[in-house]
């Protein structure tokens, strides 16, 4: 495959150039700027499709990668070698990721031309979106942690600006600040992890890290008394926690709802939160080597379950989706933790598709519901209801996605989530420490089905609860930039696109093993292969990988001992059946509560009042962070430092020094007046005046006289030579 750099670089550069150009022209030529943004992302999608098709269709089942390295800067001096490389690393995972990001982002761009059209900062939104998308694409293409970190921070900045997009709105500014600061905690750890890795490997490219893991460079390296692999893995996982909103840093993501809905779709589905999971997938070997998988599984499980419980009580349609995002990210992290690498990545992709669709649908709903008293769009579910007839396209798109996220068979969510849960179950059977995450995962799945259908029922079914609002809502007519993205995305929620069997577990096979492309293509990075990997000189073109992955190597044992391997399939079956049961149970409960009204949710609330209040306050996390850590811990510390600075340092050291100076100054002044001024200065002046009388004759100001003097002097010099 003779990829030149120009077949890959446009994927990042097109949106980036769109950003650069638009940043200048957006004020005057808003329409043109929007067009440029959309065209750029579509072009980027085109290039990404080429890569995707080459990797997925062209080079099927071949573990092929492209690694292009370019010297960024070189500070080597003598034998001291210090080089930083930037590069592009493309393997199957990158290709799939690129395709997903550009595709989803394209559709979100298209939808935004509908959603943001009446906004006064229509153009600026697209400027940010372009930068955001290009940063994510750059992150996906990066071959080393340092450039990942750069793009990571760039995305942090973009999310900051997009969350605070409506900066007039109260809370938007705070929310953007909160998102920025919270993710910053993770980022600091991430940077620490990069440095830790650098100290051992001497480089931060993925392949070098893999090689270092395989040849045991991490053995015997310690940081703060912890094995360095553990330390670095944990630090990098902290980055994931921050970016992907895992427990305990999940607090920023619900507040990110202050941004425009398409940007929420972009953040929650394709780009920012996906980046965290993507990173932990990339660094999976390191975390495996650092024995961190149990911790990761716990965090994933807790997040998956905890966020789902909070989502139960939310009334804001976007808040429900936000918590569901956290919950689903928890599943992905759980997948990473239980070693279900492939399924975790699959869930990342499927989740990106249906969550983007859900958010866009929510945006469509919100945009239609316009309260003509307050002139604001309505997001509260209690004021909705019965919207199915008003907006059929949105309804069907959202329904598909809801089925997908709830884990109903034949949809993509079922395929990916149940593989994660199945693997968790297997791990739980194999080792007791994984039981709790697995159970939390199953419980979360039940809740997911419930709250998603609760949202659907409250929004689209039943009688309209706010008659006035309902009557003022226009009937949805098919418009290309509004409905096309929704419908296209909803089509891709079908499981058949991701798996050869409709359920994903091989029960209802529509095609042979050949179409299990996801399972075959995405495999755990086998670090042993990188042991002989030569460090490439920069500017090289291609690496024809010498690792061929035959199909036999695709092993469904998930790395378990051979003895237990044959149980796996049974347990998967069990897991799948449990999942299906759970999903329908959740839907049934929602149905009974909100359609049949047979079970009154209010009674349940009054039964668990304390729990209900805890959920409404998001388990008091915000209160704890602000009231506990910041007010009790940081503020007193701050005050103490301020006191030391102002009370002690300023008063005694600085002011005291002033007194000393003043005393010295009095002496110096006397000396200056008498000695310097009178004797030295005036005396010099008098003597100069004496000379002046003599020299005035020479200094006539007539330049030709000077010139003649010069000439004769010169002649004298030469003559004497």
């Amino acid at each position, binding site marked *: 495959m003779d990829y030149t750099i120009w077949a890959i670089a446009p994927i990042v550069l097109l949106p980036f150039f769109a950003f650069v150009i638009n940043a200048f022209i957006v004020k005057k030529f808003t329409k043109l700027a929007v067009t440029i943004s959309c065209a750029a992302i579509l072009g980027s999608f085109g290039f990404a499709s080429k890569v995707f098709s080459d990797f997925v269709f062209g080079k099927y089942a071949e573990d092929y990668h492209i690694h292009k390295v370019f010297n960024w800067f070189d500070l080597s001096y003598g034998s001291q070698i210090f080089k930083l490389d930037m590069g592009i690393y493309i393997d199957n995972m990158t290709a799939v990721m690129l395709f997903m990001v550009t595709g989803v982002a394209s559709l979100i761009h298209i939808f935004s031309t509908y959603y943001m059209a009446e906004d006064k900062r229509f153009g600026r939104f697209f400027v940010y979106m372009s930068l955001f998308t290009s940063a994510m694409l750059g992150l996906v293409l990066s071959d080393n942690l340092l450039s990942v970190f750069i793009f990571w921070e760039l995305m942090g900045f973009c999310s900051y600006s997009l969350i605070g997009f409506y900066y007039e709105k109260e809370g938007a500014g705070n929310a953007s600040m909160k998102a920025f600061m919270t993710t910053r905690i993770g980022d600091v750890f991430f940077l620490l992890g990069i440095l830790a890795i650098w100290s051992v490997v001497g480089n931060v490219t993925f392949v070098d890290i893999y090689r270092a893991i395989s040849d045991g460079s991490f053995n015997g390296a310690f940081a703060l008394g912890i094995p360095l692999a553990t330390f670095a893995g944990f630090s990098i996982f902290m980055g994931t926690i921050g970016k992907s909103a895992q427990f305990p840093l999940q607090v920023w993501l619900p507040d990110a709802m202050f941004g425009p809905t398409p940007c929420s779709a972009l953040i929650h589905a394709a780009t920012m939160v996906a980046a965290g999971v993507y990173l932990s997938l990339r660094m999976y070997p390191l975390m495996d080597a650092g024995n961190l998988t149990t911790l990761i599984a716990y965090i994933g499980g807790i997040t998956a379950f905890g966020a789902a419980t909070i989502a139960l009580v939310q009334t804001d349609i976007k808040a429900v989706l936000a918590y569901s995002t956290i919950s689903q990210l928890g599943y992905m992290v759980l997948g990473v933790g239980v070693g279900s690498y492939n399924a975790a990545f699959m869930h990342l992709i499927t989740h990106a598709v249906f969550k983007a669709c859900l958010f866009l649908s929510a945006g469509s709903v919100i945009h239609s519901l316009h309260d003509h008293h307050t002139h604001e769009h309505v997001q509260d579910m209690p004021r909705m209801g019965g919207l199915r007839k008003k907006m059929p396209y949105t309804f069907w798109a959202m329904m598909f996605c809801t089925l997908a996220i709830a884990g109903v068979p034949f949809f993509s969510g079922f395929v990916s989530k149940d593989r994660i849960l199945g693997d968790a179950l297997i791990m739980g059977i194999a080792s007791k420490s994984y039981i709790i995450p697995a159970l939390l995962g199953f419980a979360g799945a039940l809740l997911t089905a419930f709250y998603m259908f609760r949202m659907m029922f409250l929004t689209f079914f039943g009688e309209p609860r706010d008659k006035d609002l309902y009557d003022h809502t226009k009937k949805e007519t098919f418009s290309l930039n509004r409905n096309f993205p929704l419908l296209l995305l909803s089509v891709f929620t079908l499981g058949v696109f991701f798996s050869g069997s409709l359920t994903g577990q091989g029960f209802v096979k529509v095609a042979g093993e050949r179409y299990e492309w996801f399972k075959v293509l995405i495999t755990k990075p086998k670090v042993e292969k990188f042991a002989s990997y030569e460090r490439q000189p920069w500017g090289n073109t291609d690496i024809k990988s010498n690792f061929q992955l035959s199909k036999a190597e695709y092993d469904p044992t998930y790395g378990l001992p051979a003895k237990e391997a044959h149980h796996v399939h049974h347990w998967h079956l069990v897991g799948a059946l449990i999942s299906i049961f759970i999903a329908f149970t959740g839907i049934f409960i929602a149905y009974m509560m909100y359609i049949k009204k047979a079970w009154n949710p209010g009674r349940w609330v009054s039964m668990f009042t304390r729990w209900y209040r805890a959920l409404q306050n998001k388990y008091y996390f915000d209160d704890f962070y602000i009231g506990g850590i910041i007010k009790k811990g940081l503020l007193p510390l701050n005050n103490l430092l301020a006191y030391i600075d102002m009370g002690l340092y300023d008063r005694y050291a600085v002011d005291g020094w002033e007194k000393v100076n003043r005393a010295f100054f009095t002496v110096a002044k006397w000396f200056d007046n008498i000695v310097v001024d009178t004797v030295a200065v005036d005396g010099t002046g008098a003597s100069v005046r004496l000379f002046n009388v003599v020299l005035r004759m020479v200094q006539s100001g007539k330049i030709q006289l000077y010139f003649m003097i010069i*000439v004769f002097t010169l002649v004298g010099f*030469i003559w004497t030579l």
Partner: protein
Amino acid sequence: MFDNILFILSASLTVVGAFSVVLTKNLMHSCVYLLAALFGTAGLYATLGADFLAATQLVVYVGGVVILMLFAVMLTGGDQDKENKFGITKVPSMGNFKTFLAGGVSALVIALVVLRLIANVAKQNPQGELPEFTSSVVAIGTKLVTDHVLAFEISSVLLLGALVGAAVIARPAKRGE
């Protein structure tokens, strides 16, 4: 043979031009004679195998400096008043006998000294095999960006400074200054 002819032509143009600059009483003519002398110098460069320098001499002096001089003459006018502000008669603008005497004496003294130096050179007569004529453009270009890059950059800064400085200095005074 042709080299000799070219040399004689250029040399006579140079020397005649230079002497005419001295001897003429008209500033405008003097500028034109300077032009002739500079043209002759360009010809001498050509006989010395410095083709790039010859062309540079043409471009810079003919296209730039001489026209600039002519402009300056036009803008400042020819003759000035004969007295200064204290009422003392000034030396005429193009010099009189006394100034020429001073100049002549200086020139004579220097000429004697320099001729003595040249005599040394002529005695040694350092003419061996002259190298074949080759174009100096590539060599000069290479030298300028390798060995002499610092001087090159400094001279570019100098030119920029001269450009800005000349523009600032020659700008008409604002009203009220």
